[in-house]
């Protein structure tokens, strides 16, 4: 299908629009079809990806260490967790001990495993794009797609807290309010999502071809 194998858009000064995909000379500055700004590559892609990544790691620590929701009242034992705060990890442990293995696995995967794997995947992609690591392009592509696809599902714990806080308002018997970790965790998810969006996968191929394409 590719009769002009080895032709790359950036070598000919052509930019493919980030928004609509139209191929236009980069000298036009704005896409003729959707009026978005044209760039050969996403501007400062690696620097931005690293910055958002480091910020998300910083938020990950309070998200795990602080209570994600505060449970007060008489019936606290029934809702899981000691009275006072319950962290994400202690919630998982409670469910595991109660025998609700599927729930424990869902929460552990969505809240602990996926954010961690996402950070590791983005670090690998960044290192591959800056030439410090190499990897087969197919698996790098797969990593990128999985990272983009899974990121949003980590938000599930934030919604659980919002739903429980809305329903469990029984005054003296039991009341649940969101803890400080809920907001920190929402920021972890948002920052890793922005980090993945700032990453430009074409940098991996530029690295393989040994080309450096400067972005204005």
């Amino acid at each position: 299908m590719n009769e002009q194998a080895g032709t790359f858009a950036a070598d000919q000064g052509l930019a493919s629009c980030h928004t609509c995909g139209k191929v236009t000379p980069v000298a036009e500055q704005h896409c003729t079809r959707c009026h978005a700004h044209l760039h050969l590559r996403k501007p400062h892609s690696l620097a931005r990806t690293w910055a958002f990544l480091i910020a998300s790691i910083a938020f990950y620590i309070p998200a795990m260490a602080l209570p994600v929701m505060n449970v007060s009242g008489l019936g606290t034992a029934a809702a899981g967790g000691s009275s006072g705060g319950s962290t994400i990890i202690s919630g998982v442990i409670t469910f595991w001990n109660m025998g609700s293995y599927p729930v424990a696995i869902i929460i552990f995967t969505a809240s602990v495993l996926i954010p961690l794997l996402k950070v590791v995947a983005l670090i690998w992609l960044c290192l591959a794009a800056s030439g410090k690591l190499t990897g087969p392009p197919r698996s790098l592509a797969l990593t990128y797609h999985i990272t983009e696809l899974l990121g949003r599902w980590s938000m599930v714990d934030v919604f659980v807290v919002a739903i429980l806080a809305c329903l469990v308002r029984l005054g003296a018997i039991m009341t649940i309010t969101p803890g400080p970790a809920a907001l920190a965790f929402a920021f972890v998810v948002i920052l890793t999502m922005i980090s993945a969006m700032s990453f430009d996968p074409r940098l991996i191929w530029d690295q393989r071809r040994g080309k450096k394409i400067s972005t204005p």
Partner: protein
Amino acid sequence: MQRKRHHHGLAWPRLDPHDQVACHFCDALQAAPRLNEGDAALCGNCGEVLFQNRPRSLSRATGFSIAALIFMCLAHSFPFLTMEAAGNHTELSLLESARILIEDGNVILSFLSVFFTIIAPLILTGGLLYIAAPLSYGKALPGSIALTRLIQHSEPWSMLEVFLLGFLVSLLKLGHVADLHFGIGLWALVALVLCIAGTMGGIDRRELWDRLELAIHQQQKHPKANTQPAPQE
């Protein structure tokens, strides 16, 4: 002269039939072939999907987004769940949960959840209806370009399906604490999630932009008489 607007197996009309496409993954430049319905073009260099022609994309997007808007109204009018415990009666809905979050002083969290579960899904469904319905008659309404860009940027932030998973987890947490009753809102929410998936899965990004470009071009050429449908080869 062809009068029918939907032809099975036909490629969508394009302003420049000999267009080029650069792979968004490896930047390889190649000719953009015109695809029959149901086909996809893969990059010759890295094998990523370049674009695909999804069957009856505009009518699918229109239909699913109308259905989604109806279910959205229902999901906001009725509670998802009512809980009876110790003489207390509490209800769950998207707006109610946002209101409680503000009452507890979590303004940012409340704003985020409103954006992810109310605003972004509304932009996706309402926006796509505004674009796709007139586009099946070869027309583009004012503001279509800015709106299509907005839709694309808010797509990853629409998280109703994640909310639904969170709802299931909450049920398991509450199951043995209180009496729970499902409301109409919950079934509307499930249907809404399915309809949003149908809306967004119905149309390819490049196809939407190609059709939009042609519609705008034709309106500029014939500012008054743009009643005939887009030419199809």
